[in-house]
């Protein structure tokens, strides 16, 4: 069985049609994507990463606010409790 397919006297593509495929910016962009690690790219140039980080920060802020509020409430409760149950100072 033949390993090859022979094309005999078939024309080559014209310059015009070869030039249609020429696109250095595409190759350059792929090269940059493959060589520049994420941390070296400014955040504002990568909207997806920027949005994800913004969401994480928002989430951290909300959780922090929530836990801070809860802790304040808990701090207040034992004070009230201790005021009610505080035993009298002997001899006063």
């Amino acid at each position: 069985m033949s390993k090859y397919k022979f094309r005999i006297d078939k024309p080559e593509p014209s310059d015009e049609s070869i030039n249609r495929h020429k696109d250095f910016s595409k190759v350059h962009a792929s090269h940059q994507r493959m060589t520049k690690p994420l941390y070296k790219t400014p955040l504002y140039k990568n909207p997806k990463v920027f949005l994800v980080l913004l969401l994480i920060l928002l989430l951290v802020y909300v959780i922090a606010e929530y836990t801070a509020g809860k802790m304040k409430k808990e701090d207040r409760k034992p004070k009230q409790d201790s005021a009610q149950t505080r035993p009298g100072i002997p001899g006063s």
Partner: protein
Amino acid sequence: MNEHHKTDNDLALELQQVEAAKSDPARFSVLYEKYYKVIFIFIFRRTGEEELAADITSNTFLKAMLALPKYEYKGVPFSAFLFRIALNEINMYFRKSKKERVVSLEQVSLGAMVDETGQNDSEENRKLVMALLSHLDAGSMQMIEMRFFEKRPFAEIGQILGITENHAKVKTYRLLDKLKALILKRRAGK
């Protein structure tokens, strides 16, 4: 002087362009513009499909850009580096797709090759040579294609394959001798 020949000045200028591209990949565009067509045609002749040739050409230039920091000038044109990457990409494509490798040739080149085997250029001999070529291994076919169907000088073939000009010559003539022997064997077997 043929189209493949480069003067020392050409090589020096090209080396400057390569060094510039090493420090700023955007400046690789000069080399891309310069070699896009030759690489495209080199790949097209081995694939036979325009879209596929365009994809493999893009990959070739991308791989060349990625390998550029390790590129070392060895006194040969930059195109040899690109052709070598293109050959690897073509081989990889055919290995993965398991399709038949395409070989483009002209009747005139085939006739010239029949002459080189010491036979007279007849339809029967052309068919016989084609039949023998179809059983060659990939490496031997590459030599035949570059030397007889693309008419590249031995020096350039050597540069592309990473061997000396003399080695390329020896390999080609050994192949021709092998073909001659096979033709005689076929004739004797008739």
